[in-house]
């Protein structure tokens, strides 16, 4: 099963790269959806011994939420706000990619420094999830539109989820569902917020909210 796990992890990194280098919101949402599906498949790939109903249910819930529900909400937010479909980065795409590579190298280095006292399914699961967290944070910081910031949060959460899978073999079911609910609410609120920002200001550029300062 390790081979599948590694392939999924590498695909996760690649999706990070695409997110960093992509200029269209629609693309970003689609990639984030794929990433959600892959993360959802992770517990199924890690469960080499006991493939229980619990794990399957959790996987399916994650896949459905992150792969289908969230993207829908985001897409609707874009459609209803009828704003520009561009990412509008603060940091250019090539520089973002470079930052992604640096984040990846840094997380592999960090992983060499931190030694987890437990048996891991794959040699790269910890650094990959660390780099996903860094990338998510970077996306939140370096992108202008609110939708993209939501995507950044999603990537960050995916990273946390993957890391928790790696470290705590049996994810407490309820805790995980709680996190999912949090994300759901977050996306929901963001969606409404995007809609409101757009209604009020005719754009959804979160940077321009700075004008609201007294």
């Amino acid at each position, binding site marked *: 099963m390790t081979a599948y796990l590694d392939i999924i992890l590498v695909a996760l990194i690649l999706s990070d790269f695409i997110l960093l280098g992509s200029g269209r919101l629609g693309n970003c949402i689609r990639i984030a959806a794929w990433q959600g599906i892959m993360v959802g498949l992770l517990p199924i790939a890690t469960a080499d011994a006991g493939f229980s109903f619990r794990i399957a249910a959790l996987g399916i819930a994650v896949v459905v939420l992150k792969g289908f529900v969230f993207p829908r909400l985001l897409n609707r937010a874009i459609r209803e706000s009828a704003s520009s479909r561009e990412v509008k980065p603060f940091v250019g795409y090539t520089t973002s990619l470079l930052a992604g590579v640096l984040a990846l190298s840094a997380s592999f280095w960090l992983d*060499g420094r931190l030694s987890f006292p437990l048996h891991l399914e794959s040699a790269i699961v910890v650094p990959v999830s660390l780099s996903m967290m860094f990338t998510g944070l970077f996306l939140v910081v370096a992108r202008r539109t609110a939708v993209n910031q939501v995507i950044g949060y999603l990537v960050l959460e995916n990273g946390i989820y993957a890391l928790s899978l790696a470290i705590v073999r049996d994810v407490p079911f309820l805790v995980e569902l709680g996190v999912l609910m949090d994300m759901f609410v977050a996306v929901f609120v963001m969606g409404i917020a995007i809609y409101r920002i757009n209604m009020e200001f005719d754009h959804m550029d979160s940077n321009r909210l700075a004008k609201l300062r007294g």
Partner: protein
Amino acid sequence: MTITLLFISLCTFLAGGLVPAFLRGNSRFSRVFGPVANVAGCAVGLLGVVLSMLYGPAESGSIHWGAPSGSMAVGIDPLSALFALPVLVISALCALHGCGYMKPYAAKGKDMSRFWAFYNFLTGGMLLVTVARNALLFLLGWEVMALASFFLVLFDAGREPVRRAAWIYLVATHLGTACILLLFSMLGSGGSLDFTGLSLPDRSWAGAAFVLALVGFGTKAGFVPFHVWLPEAHPSAPSNVSAVMSGVMIKTGIYGLLRFILFMGPPPAWWGWTLLGVGLLSGVAGVLMALSQHELKRMLAYSSVENIGIIGMGLGLGLLGISYGIPAMAFLGFAGAFLHVLNHSVFKSLLFLAAGAIQNATGTRELDQLGGLLKRMPVTGAAFLAGSVAICGLPPLNGFVGELTAYLAAFTGIQNGAGTQGALPGIIAIGGLALMGGLALACFTKAFGIAFLGEPRSPGAGSARESHFSMRFPLVALSLLCLLMGLGGWLLVGLVEPVVGMLTTGFGFPVATGVHASHAESTLRYASIGSVSVIAAVLLLLFVRSRLLARRSVTTAPTWGCGYGSPEPSMQYTASSFADPLTGLFGPALGTGRNLASPGGLFPDRAGFSSDTPDACTDRFYIPLFTGMERLFKRLRVIQHGRINLYVLSIVVALAALLAWKLG
């Protein structure tokens, strides 16, 4: 014997400097005597260097000279010989070039005796730096070199930018010298400044000593961020002087760095990492800034920063090889750096001399004013082409030899390094070298293509004529040298092998140089075979092609202009537009300013595009720093009041305070 020759050579340079200096006004005599003395001195010195390479190192023993801390001692070992060799060869060729190149200045009534005096002092200073065996003597040579080159930069002092450039150079070089002085006071705390007696009393100071050496010698070598004087001083000096400065003088910085870190004991890993990082930064920043310049000599100066970066990366790999215990990487890294030292001195001086020929023929160095020169100056053009191919590191010319060896070092690190130890520096070096190679290609196709190909963009370029024989000869000689050193790359490995052996032994990590050298030699020999067969095949194919076309109609027509009837030279791509995609991509780091005049109105007539890249390091770091310091020191003006009695009072107070401190 070797030492005698070196002394004779040094004395010749001294005479070549002093005689014109005392015969000021007799410009005609100096114009003959200066270059003759220089070439003679170089020839004698070269004989000494070759003898030392054949029969081993030589030392003069100590000669008492009255100065404190040790004796006047010169000597030559493989490291000295390696750096003295290009000094002598390139200086002589540039002196020859100067005979023709300086004619327009002489015709304008400039006093040539001053020029030749300082030129001989410069060569003598550089030779003294490489052969000195006493820190004080080394400093003497270092200062003679710095001051002579300062006055040579100032040769055309009538122009304001030249004076500014010369000041920047003077300040930079003395800030470097200050660090070197501190370094010597640390190394010489044992009492003697002879090289045999230099050592660090306390190993814990080695890190500080390394940083001082890196800053002090790195300023002369032109590592980023200490490079700011290069793009100012090199374009301002006469071209043959820029060729010497850029081709060989900056290498004395590398020499000094190596010579003095040898006294600091086995290198910790962070030294290698620092050199690798500084080299990478210099290389990438240097080539990017070179790419965005449109003034030929300024561009060449930045490209020197890039090449120093490549040398620094090679040295960094070598040091890391020692620290991590990877002998092959240590050997190949150092060997790549030294090969590049030799090769760069040849092709960079070639390019600067060609740039000088262009300036004499057209009156400008702005690429956007040139064009079509290959037809008007075929020899200069072919030489510039050779230099450009060489500097891009392409076979069959010599730039390729050092870069291939550096690549081999990096790949060896990946291959052998346990864990991430050798792999990480290796992959960083590979990525950096590859990026630099591609950008250098962009940079020099731009320079060659815009200046020499197409149609002339200005009347000056249109009326250019091929230069005088004395200028063509060094160009041809250096081009041939580029080709020979490229095809015979494996022979050069034998030249640098003893130097690497000396270095690695000096660092306490003896490497079986013979084995690694034979590996590098075999790769380079295969590469030479490949290059020769490519050349032969190209000639064959050209022959077939000409036979094929012999019986066909080969007509000449204007260049295809998409149906536009009256094409003009001003419609050609310019240097700015050629470099725009790349400078745009790296724009945020470069700070390139773009001036775009869009066509407007119903009958648009004038439109234009140009870009201009100031040195980001100067603008964002040094200018704020120095203005801040100026503001700070202005506060001290209060004590500069001009009243002598108060000055005397302050001296008395200071003396009293010192006495109290010493006695109390």
